[in-house]
């Protein structure tokens, strides 16, 4: 493949496929941006560790314990004989303390997880892999504005996304669909077959109740995670897959009794809808948990899934209107390799279209923030991400607010108010750090040959070092990638 001049490929590699250059990175990339990206695909995916990061199971166990305390206090209040005693019990220090403990448990976990992810994004020397990890995290999105997800979003990403980023798509699909965070986010943990043993028992005991399926996870599995909305499924397929996934649940606090760790995935056979199901024309005999795995593996291998993933990758990395040849190439690689993700990525970066039209996409707020921190080596407070900044610029970490994840078009991010906030923040950064940075010297080191003469001159003629930094961060070629 013949590429444009070398300076341009390093700038495109660092900015379009990475998280923005750090000083010296373009020089290190040297002649071939493509080789730099390919090399990042070697070896296992980086792990995000760090002191104090906890597993989902451990966090759910703590949440169970807290809920039990709250429940016990409520029961004590209800059992108290007089109104006065009830009020006293409800208002007891123990009851109030237990209620307050839930946010006290969740918030530090969220901050620690967001902080670890942010620090990794800023410091990694495999930024392409980090972009991919965040792409998949957004593809299989959960959102921290629901229930206890703020405690689980980080561990979910570390447990169900990152280990598979350089693996196989179908493994990641299964890992995400069975993760407690996803089961809670899309309401599957209580979904039960209307003819299951558990449903029959409940009906016998409570004649009014009609336990049954919840379609939420199954619909989004089809629409958002695999074949996509035009992938050829019907409402009947949604209902059938809902039944297939009944019993995909989470081990409760008592699970120790039968040797299972609380807060981990549990297939509850008693809740599973008995009998075969037909999903998208294929019949699946009732093999319990394996019925769901079989459907997911087939959905992962479906041509509609290959095309959907290829389109999303090309839109994310190349252009809002993804070039058809690139989509075809990536989809073919996906199908041919049976979802081997490094093969898919090689097809993506090997597409000539990916190296044309520099700065075609407006950065997301997250990419803008991270690239600013990387480029200017802005100081980071230990163990803390500037979560306020992500929120202010419109992309609170792990909070897309919908299972579709954050939108991925320039028009979704380049709003007037958004732009002005970025400029205002760039101004604050300039005032804080400007005197200790030389933007004239930094601009070509961060943007390489995509730096325009207009921006270079504007920076050179700034009235102060602070203003020069502001102009660098606010430059059109820094806002885009």
């Amino acid at each position: 493949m013949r590429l444009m001049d070398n300076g341009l490929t390093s700038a495109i590699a660092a900015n379009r496929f990475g998280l923005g250059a750090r000083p010296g990175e373009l020089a290190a990339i040297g002649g071939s941006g493509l080789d730099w990206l390919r090399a990042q695909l070697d070896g296992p995916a980086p792990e995000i560790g760090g002191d104090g990061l906890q597993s989902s199971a451990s966090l759910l166990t703590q949440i169970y314990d807290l809920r039990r305390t709250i429940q016990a206090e409520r029961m004590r209040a209800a059992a108290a004989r007089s109104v006065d005693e009830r009020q006293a019990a409800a208002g007891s220090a123990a009851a109030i303390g237990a209620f307050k403990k839930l946010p006290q448990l969740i918030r530090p976990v969220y901050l620690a997880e967001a902080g670890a992810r942010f620090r990794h994004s800023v410091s990694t020397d495999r930024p392409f892999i980090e972009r991919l990890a965040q792409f998949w995290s957004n593809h299989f999105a959960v959102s921290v504005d629901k229930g206890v997800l703020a405690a689980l979003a980080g561990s979910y990403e570390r447990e169900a996304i990152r280990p598979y980023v350089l693996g196989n798509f179908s493994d990641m699909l299964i890992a995400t669909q069975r993760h407690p965070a996803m089961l809670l986010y899309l309401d599957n943990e209580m979904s039960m077959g209307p003819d299951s043993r558990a449903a029959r028992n409940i009906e016998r005991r409570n004649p009014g109740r009609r336990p049954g399926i919840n379609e939420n996870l199954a619909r989004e599995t089809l629409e958002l995670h695999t074949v996509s909305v035009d992938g050829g499924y019907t409402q009947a397929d949604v209902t059938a897959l809902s039944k297939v996934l009944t019993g995909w649940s989470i081990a409760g606090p008592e699970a120790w009794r039968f040797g299972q760790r609380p807060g981990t995935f549990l297939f509850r056979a008693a809740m599973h809808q008995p009998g075969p199901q037909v999903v998208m024309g294929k019949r699946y005999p009732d093999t319990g948990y394996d019925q769901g795995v079989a459907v997911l593996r087939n959905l992962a291998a479906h041509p509609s899934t290959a095309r959907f993933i290829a389109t999303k990758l090309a839109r994310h990395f190349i252009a809002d209107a993804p070039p058809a040849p690139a989509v075809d190439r990536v989809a073919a690689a996906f199908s041919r390799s049976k979802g081997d993700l490094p093969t898919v990525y090689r097809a993506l970066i090997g597409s000539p279209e990916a190296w044309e039209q520099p700065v075609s996409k407006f950065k997301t707020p997250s990419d803008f923030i991270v690239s600013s921190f990387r480029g200017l080596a802005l100081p980071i407070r230990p163990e803390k991400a500037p979560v306020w900044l992500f929120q202010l610029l419109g992309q609170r970490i792990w909070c897309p607010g919908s299972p579709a994840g954050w939108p991925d078009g320039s028009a979704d991010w380049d709003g007037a108010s958004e732009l002005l906030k970025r400029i205002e923040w760039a101004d604050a950064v300039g005032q804080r750090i400007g005197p200790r940075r030389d933007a004239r010297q930094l601009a070509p080191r961060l943007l390489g040959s995509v730096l325009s003469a207009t921006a270079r001159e504007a920076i050179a003629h700034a009235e102060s070092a602070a203003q020069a930094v502001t102009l660098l961060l606010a430059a059109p070629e820094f806002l885009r990638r």
Partner: protein
Amino acid sequence: MKRREFLTAGALAAGGTLLSGLTFAGVANGNKPRLVFIILRGALDGLEAVPPCGDPAYAALRGELEIARPGTNGGALALDGIFGLHPALSFMHQTYAARELIIFHAVAGPYRNRSHFDGQNVLETGYAQPHAAQTGWLNRALAALPAARAPEKTRGVSIAPTAPLVMRGPAAVTSWSPSHLAPLDDDTLQRISDLYSHDPVLGRKLAEALAAEAIAEQSAARSRDAMAGGAGAHFAAGAFGSMMDTSGRMTMAPDARMGQRADRRPPLAQRGRPGAQYAQVVRAAARFIRQADGPQVAVFDTTGWDTHFNEGNEKGQLAARLAALDAALGGLKAGLGPVWSDTAVLLATEFGRTVAENGTRGTDHGTATAAYLLGGAVKGGRVVADWPGLSPRQLYQDRDLRPTLDLRAVMKGVLAEHLGVPARALESAVFPESGAARPLKGLVRT
């Protein structure tokens, strides 16, 4: 040069003539019609918000989600013989009694396939199929308005960092959202404007942002004047005033500003509550469209209506969100003051939910639902519904409320009667392929 003068000059230099219609004269109420469009993302359950208590099939299908008949304990607020209003919607009920609220029931747009994201796309583009356009019906409607006063005037505002799709398009609009960052000094702003002068997108966006700032600052200044004079203090007392007040913005040294901000936010758990979010947004919307020379249309969205699990009935999850929405609408009326009488507020969601309760005390994605039009300009006090009924053979695909009214007929009616969008534009540019959905008549007071 004063900031305000600079803003005008700078924006003109950077983005052309977006501000040419913007004057800084005092409020001269021209009785211009105002429209607020509120997107309810997530498929709001119309059978819960506006329960058809008088339908004989309703109670049995709804199970634990049933809202009791009006007059019973925790029951619906009475509307007419069939319908009630969720007990959390007390402000809306007052508006209904004041004949300022129309509810449209068994309503749906042209989309039928139960995907939130395609459904919302159709709700916003105004096209018959998903992903048929990159612009929204409301923006195209603004672009089709007769250019009587000022052709390039900023006609609409989104209370959001980036405009939702419904507001994107050719007409001059802007977006605004609260910022606690310090404003730029004029020299830096001028240099950035120059830097963007050859960039068609960023140049326009910056000009739009400065236009919104100018309107907001003007509004804040008026509120301060009003407060000083004792009149209008009611409207000025809100957080919006302080947010928009440049003198009230943080002016600490940059180091201190950046370090302390994380501690100024409300705690995470609190921010999840819908009420606090809405209150700030409606105050902003009211501030913008109250201006005689400001935008006449405001848009914002609300989320959290996707109630698959533990939906609740007169109490519970959905009830809490409805109460917050209801309070926000009350706040909007208060914020608009006398301009309420020139205002219509339209609320719509992408589709409805299953008629029957699902297996986890919630509802799954459905088809028809309710839409809401309220305001001083609305000829209300009625439920508009060709009620299909909830008996099994009347349900759509054996599970959903059957649509009997096209949502676009409501939207077209509002745009034609209230804003004066020409009929030809409605049929071609604004809602293509919507000929069968005749615009409803008699929605607003004339």
